[in-house]
């Protein structure tokens, strides 16, 4: 049985977010609720659709995640890069030190 998680982008700033157990949206992958089975996934996607209607998020979808002894991680490279909240490379942003809550390599 595959385990999944719901992800989306936050509407206002586009940040990658994950649906949590409490039904809110977190930028930390580790805070995302792991969904086991179709029924849980369907219910979570219904919550996501409601959040999209409330202008909280955009472009929600399910991702496959792997749960093992080391914890939870996305199975695809693409989703692992998203979960890390930034490119896999060192970004040269010169002297830029950031807006509040943001840095060149993710939040």
């Amino acid at each position: 049985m595959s385990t999944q998680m719901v992800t989306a982008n936050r509407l206002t700033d586009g940040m990658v977010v994950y649906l949590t157990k409490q039904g809110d949206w977190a930028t930390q992958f580790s805070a995302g609720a792991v969904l086991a089975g179709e029924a849980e996934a369907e219910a979570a996607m219904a919550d996501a659709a409601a959040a999209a209607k409330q202008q909280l998020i955009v472009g929600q979808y399910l991702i496959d995640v792997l749960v093992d002894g080391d914890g939870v991680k996305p199975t695809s490279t693409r989703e692992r890069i998203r979960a890390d909240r930034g490119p896999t490379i060192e970004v040269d942003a010169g002297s830029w030190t950031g807006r509040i809550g943001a840095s060149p390599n993710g939040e």
Partner: protein
Amino acid sequence: MYRYDEFDATFVRERVQQFTGQVERRLAGEITEEQFRPLRLQNGVYLQLHAYMLRIAIPYGTLSSKQMRKLGFIARRYDRGFGHFTTRQNIQFNWPQLDEVPAILEHLAEVEMHAIQTSGNCIRNTTADQHSGVAKDEIEDPRVYAEIIRQWSTLHPEFAFLPRKFKIAVTGASNDRAAVRVHDIGLRMLKNEAGEIGFEVWVGGGLGRTPIIGTALKPFVEKQHLLSYLEAVLRVYNQLGRRDNLYKARIKILVNATGAEEFARLVEEEWQSIKDSALTLPLEEIERIRQYFALPEYESLPDWTPEFEAARKANPEFARWVQSNVKPHRQAGYAIVDISLKPEGGAPGDASADQMDIVADLADDYSFGEIRVSHHQNLVLPHVRQQDLFALWQRLSGAKLATSNIGFITDIIACPGLDYCNLANARAIPVAQRISRAFSDPKRLAEIGELRLNISGCINACGHHHVGNIGILGVDKHGEEFYQVTLGGSSRDDASIGKIVGPAFSTEDIAGAVETIVTTYLGARTSDSERFIDTYRRIGIDPFKEALYGNSQARRPAAE
């Protein structure tokens, strides 16, 4: 440089107001994402892997220092301190907030810039030779016509919903630096037998999943008929291009399916009916636009500058930079300076806000305030006195902007790839970084000579891999990144599409494979002046296959 007239300024201002209202309505829930998506795309706003992305138009790659400073300001205030120059001579910011995009657009409008038509199925930013106006091999400055095309194509009601996006490139030089043969329409200025200057029109070139070198549609179109001819091509495409299949919607597919001859006949028929209409360009109007591109008031200088020559002799590193990054200028005593945005281990095309400010300052100090962006994702200072080259180089060196590698294997075109892009299958930037580190020795670079290496993170080919002498395409195999190599591509006058050399390489093996290809070339070339592409065309793909896969695999069919 072109300055907005009242009409330009008004429509940009109106567009900012309109989009500001659309963003407000989206955030308030008055319109859905489905309704909003086409609106944001028409204003250059994408939703990418990590965040929104804003693509800003830089018409024909020409920027003033003031505009560059504004881009630096936007990078700093609204983004994360850097931007990415693209193969369409535009710039992308990777982290804008949707609720702040209207403010960014207001800032851009202040310096006569916008993001209109940088996305969507419309005529995109027209690109041009980055050395326009100053190149020694130029017949006429193509930016005059690129600007006329910009005015004609901006918000053109008939072409706002084409079957697919549409890209036009113009060159006015005898050596094609604008890749006109791989564009939907490529325009090459030339002189006919009567000595008149006009356009050779290429159509149906393009990369993506179906790479095709364009077809020469019309050998000569007079300047005054340029717009009516373009309109005729677009009209035939708009009517007959496929809208049922995204992958078959570009004009190249239509030209192939119709046949070049029949397509030319259809265009000709359409053209004859609109040729002498309101689209005819009055010569006075061309002259009026040309005034905007008048060359700066150069000093009268000798073409031999003793202090420059002395600096070159005294400093081998400077001499190397001059050799690769400085090009002859049409004005005696001046030079064109290519600024590489491909430092060792860097992300191709990226520039920090600090670097944008520095380039703006250098443009003011040494290049009449003018900057260009090349489709190779580099910058250009087009009017530098030879006597200033050494001081300029020193200041560039201090800002990590003096990499001596224009046209070399490390002057890599790379798309953002899976590090940023929603469509990508594999990362492109880390591969570019690895290759740039493997070939960082400047002596070796010079020994290898001209060699274009391009990398795309997916089949959409934004990294132009098909026309790299060495092309690298990232593919996904069961969740793992692999890299397929093509050889023999070129986007110049001798344009060709590269051939797949064999099965794809893993992330670990790709830089080594490039090394093997280069070693094979060096061993096979007849002289130091035989370029990689010439050797490849002389000896074919087999020696490279053999070196990469060994004899047993040389005859294996290529992987997907």
